C-alpha cells in the first residue's frame, strides 16, 4: 500500500486544497481580480439584502414607513441600507470593468465561450436587480422611475400593452406591482444569480484562467498557484472595494425621497445613474423611431454580446492582431460612457431648469439679486411651492404636531431661528418609547438668500386673533420671576416629557434653547391653554394661573 495514501487529507479538505492549488498561467495579475471582487460584492448584497428583508414590508401602504423604520429605529439600519445601495452601484461598475477586461484580453474565445455567456447573463441579472430594487422603497423616485421603465415596454409592437399589464399586475403601478418586483428581487433573481454564478465558476475552473495574450494551444508556463499568490491580490482588491462601499454608506447613506405621490406634477423622474445610457438613447430617438432607441439598439447590443464568441472566430488574443474586434469594442465602450455622461449632464440640467423656473416665477421683484439681504416673501412663496413644503406641513396644528402646521408660524417663531433652521434642519423631537419614529426635516441645501425668502414668506402666516398681545412684557422680567419660573418647570413635572439642559426626557420637544426659537407670546399662550393652540396635543393643561405662566415664560425665554 502506498504510505502517502493515509496522509492525504480526507473529503472536503482535499477538495478545498485542490481548488486552492489551481495553477495560474504567467501574466495573471491584478486585472484578473475583478471577478473575485464581484463575488465579494454579491456576498455583501446577499447578507445586507437578507437583513433588510427582516424589517421591510412589500406593501404600498407600509413599504415607505418600513424603510423609515429601518433608517431611524433599527441599529445600523442606515449603514446596512447604505451598503446595499452602494454595493449595487459598485456591482454595475465592476461588472462593466470585468466584461471590458475579458473582452480586450480575448478571454471569451473558445474553449471559454460558456464562461462568457454565463457572464453576460449575470450582467442582465444585475441590471434586473437594479431595476426591481429601486421600486421597493416606494418613494417618489421609485414610483416614477419604475413607471417610466415599465412603460418603455409599451413601445414593443403588438404585445407591448400586455407586457405592461403583466409587469404591473394590473392597469397601474400599485401594491401588486410592488409584490411582483419584490418577488423578482428576493426570490427569482437571487436563484438565477446563484445558479449562473455556479455555472460561471464551474467553467472558469474547467478551462483555467486565460493565459494573457497567448493564442490557444501556444505553450504556457504556470509559475504560480491560486493560493496564496492570486488569492492575496483578490483579497486586497475585495478589501479595498468593500471598504469604499462601507465608507460611502457610512458617510452618505442611501437616498430616500418623499413617499410616492402619483398625483405629483412637478417631480422630474430620473433613473439611477447606471440606466442613464438607456435613458439617453430613448431621448435621441423620437416619434416613430422610438422603438430603435428603446428596443432595437439595446436588444441588438445584448444579442451581439451573447453571440460574440461565435461571431469572432479569429483565434488571436493579441490586441494588434484583432483590429476589427478591438475597434468595435472600443466604439461600444465609448458609446456607453458618452451616453452615461450625457444622461448625467441632462439630468442635472433638468434639475437646474426646474430651480430656475421657480426663481423666474418669483422674479419680477428686483434683478440685482446678488446684493439683496432681506427676504422676499413672493420668491419665498414660489420656493415653498417648488419644494412642496405644504405636502408635509399643513395649515393647522394638531395632535403630536409632527411636522408642525405653519398656519400661525408668524406668531410662533423667531425669524432668526427659522432662518438658521431652514438652512440646517435638526431633529426637534426624538423618538420616544411609545411613539412612531420621528423624522427630521430634509435639508434642502438652501442658499442664504433662498432661506431668507422662504423664512419671510413663512413668517407672513399669522393668526393674530388666536394670540392676543399678553399684558406683560417679558423684557421687564426680574430675576425673581426667572427663578420662580425655573422652580415651577420642575414642580409641575415638565421635565417628565421635555428636556431642559441635562435633565428631562426626550418625549416632547427639547426646551434647552427654546428662548431663541419661540416668541414670548407664543410660549405664554401655549403653556396657558395648550389644547387651544394645538388641538389634541398630548401636552397637559395644568390650568396654571396668570402669574405662574408669566414666571415660566420669563425662565424659558432666557434658555438660548
Amino acid at each position, binding site marked *: 500500500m502506498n504510505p502517502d495514501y493515509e496522509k492525504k487529507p480526507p473529503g472536503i479538505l482535499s477538495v478545498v486544497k485542490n481548488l486552492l492549488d489551481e495553477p495560474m498561467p504567467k501574466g495573471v495579475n491584478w486585472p484578473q481580480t475583478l471577478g473575485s471582487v464581484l463575488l*465579494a460584492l454579491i456576498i*455583501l448584497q446577499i*447578507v*445586507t439584502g437578507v*437583513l433588510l428583508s*427582516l*424589517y421591510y*414590508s412589500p406593501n404600498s401602504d*407600509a413599504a415607505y*414607513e*418600513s424603510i*423609515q*423604520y429601518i433608517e431611524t*429605529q*433599527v*441599529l*445600523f*439600519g442606515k*449603514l*446596512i441600507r447604505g*451598503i446595499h445601495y452602494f454595493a449595487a452601484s459598485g456591482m454595475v461598475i465592476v461588472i462593466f470593468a470585468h466584461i471590458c477586461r475579458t473582452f480586450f484580453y480575448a478571454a471569451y474565445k473558445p474553449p471559454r465561450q460558456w464562461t462568457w455567456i454565463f457572464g453576460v447573463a449575470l450582467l442582465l441579472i444585475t441590471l434586473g436587480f437594479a431595476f426591481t430594487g429601486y421600486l421597493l422603497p416606494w418613494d417618489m423616485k421609485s414610483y416614477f422611475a419604475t413607471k417610466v421603465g415599465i412603460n418603455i415596454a409599451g413601445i414593443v409592437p403588438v404585445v407591448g400593452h400586455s407586457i405592461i399589464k403583466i409587469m404591473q399586475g394590473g392597469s397601474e403601478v400599485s401594491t401588486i406591482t410592488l409584490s411582483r418586483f419584490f418577488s423578482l428581487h428576493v426570490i427569482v433573481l437571487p436563484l438565477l444569480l446563484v445558479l449562473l454564478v455556479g455555472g460561471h465558476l464551474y467553467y472558469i475552473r474547467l478551462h483555467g484562467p486565460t493565459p494573457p495574450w497567448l493564442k490557444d494551444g501556444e505553450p504556457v508556463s504556470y509559475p504560480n498557484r491560486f*493560493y*496564496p*499568490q492570486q*488569492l*492575496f491580490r483578490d*483579497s*486586497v482588491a*475585495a*478589501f479595498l472595494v*468593500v*471598504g469604499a462601499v*462601507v465608507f460611502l454608506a457610512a458617510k452618505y447613506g442611501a437616498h430616500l425621497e418623499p413617499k410616492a405621490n402619483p398625483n405629483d406634477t412637478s417631480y422630474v423622474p430620473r433613473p439611477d445613474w447606471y440606466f442613464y445610457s438607456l435613458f439617453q438613447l430613448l431621448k435621441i430617438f423620437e416619434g416613430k423611431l422610438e422603438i430603435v432607441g428603446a428596443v432595437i439598439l439595446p436588444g441588438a447590443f445584448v444579442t451581439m454580446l451573447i453571440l460574440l464568441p461565435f461571431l469572432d472566430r479569429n483565434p488571436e488574443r493579441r490586441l494588434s492582431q484583432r483590429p476589427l474586434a478591438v475597434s468595435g469594442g472600443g466604439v461600444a465602450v465609448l458609446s456607453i460612457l458618452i451616453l452615461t455622461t450625457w444622461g448625467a449632464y441632462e439630468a442635472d440640467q433638468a434639475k437646474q431648469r426646474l430651480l430656475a423656473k421657480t426663481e423666474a416665477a418669483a422674479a419680477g421683484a428686483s434683478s440685482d439679486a446678488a446684493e439683496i439681504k432681506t427676504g422676499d416673501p413672493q420668491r419665498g412663496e414660489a420656493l415653498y411651492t417648488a419644494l412642496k413644503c405644504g405636502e408635509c406641513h399643513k395649515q393647522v396644528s394638531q395632535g403630536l404636531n409632527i411636522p408642525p402646521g405653519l398656519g400661525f408660524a408668524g406668531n410662533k417663531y423667531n425669524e432668526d431661528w427659522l432662518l438658521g433652521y431652514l438652512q440646517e434642519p435638526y431633529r426637534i423631537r426624538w423618538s420616544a*418609547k*411609545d411613539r*412612531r*419614529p420621528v423624522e427630521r426635516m430634509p435639508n434642502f441645501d438652501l442658499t442664504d438668500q433662498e432661506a431668507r425668502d422662504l423664512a419671510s414668506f413663512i413668517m407672513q402666516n399669522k393668526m393674530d386673533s388666536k394670540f392676543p398681545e399678553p399684558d406683560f412684557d417679558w423684557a421687564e422680567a426680574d430675576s425673581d420671576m426667572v427663578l420662580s419660573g425655573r422652580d415651577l418647570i420642575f414642580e409641575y413635572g415638565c421635565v417628565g416629557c421635555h428636556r431642559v439642559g441635562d435633565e428631562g426626557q426626550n418625549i416632547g420637544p427639547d426646551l434647552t434653547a427654546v428662548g431663541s426659537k419661540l416668541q414670548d407670546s407664543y410660549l405664554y399662550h401655549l403653556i396657558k391653554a395648550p389644547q387651544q393652540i394645538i388641538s389634541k396635543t398630548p401636552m397637559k393643561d395644568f390650568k396654571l394661573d396668570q402669574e405662574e405662566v408669566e414666571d415660566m415664560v420669563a425662565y424659558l425665554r432666557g434658555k438660548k
Partner: protein
Amino acid sequence: MQIHSTQLTVDEESISRRGFLKAAIGLLNGLIALTLAVPGLGFLLTPVFRKGSSSWIKLGAADNFSSAEPQKATLKYVSEAGYTRAEKTGFVWVVPEAGGENPLTVLSAVCSHTGCNVAWQTDEQKFVCPCHEGRYDRHGDVLSGPPPRPLTKLATRIENGQLFVQLLT
C-alpha cells in the same frame, strides 16, 4: 555545495513570502467579515436591545367587579409593532379579594407554561389552561399540571372609583 546553499536561501525566502501572503489573506478577509458582522448583528438583534414600555389601561368602574367570582375584563390597548400601530383587544381576570390588602387583584390570563389563555371554571373553582391542563387557584398559584410559575399579577390602581391596570409591552 555552494549551489545547494543558494537554493536553500531562495526557498527560505519564498517560504517567508508565502507565510506573509497567507497571513495577509486571513487578515483582509477577516476584516471584511468583521465590518459586515458588527453592524449586521446589531441590525439583527435590534429587538433584543429595545426597551419595553408600560401603560395604564382603564378596566371600568371598580364596583362592577364586586361579585365573589373572578370576572373576565376585556381591555383595548394600542399595540405598536415596528412601523405599525393598531388598537387591539385583550382580557385579564379580575379577582375580588375579600379582606385582602387590595380589594381587587388583576391576573394575566396568559398561562405561565406555554402562553395559552386560562379560563375560570366555576364548577371546579379553578383557573384551567386548555392546552396542557394546568390548574391555578383563584390567587393564580399553581395547583397541578405543568405550569412553572403562578399567573402574573398586574399592577393596579383605583382612581375616582375606576380600576386601572398596568400593561407591559
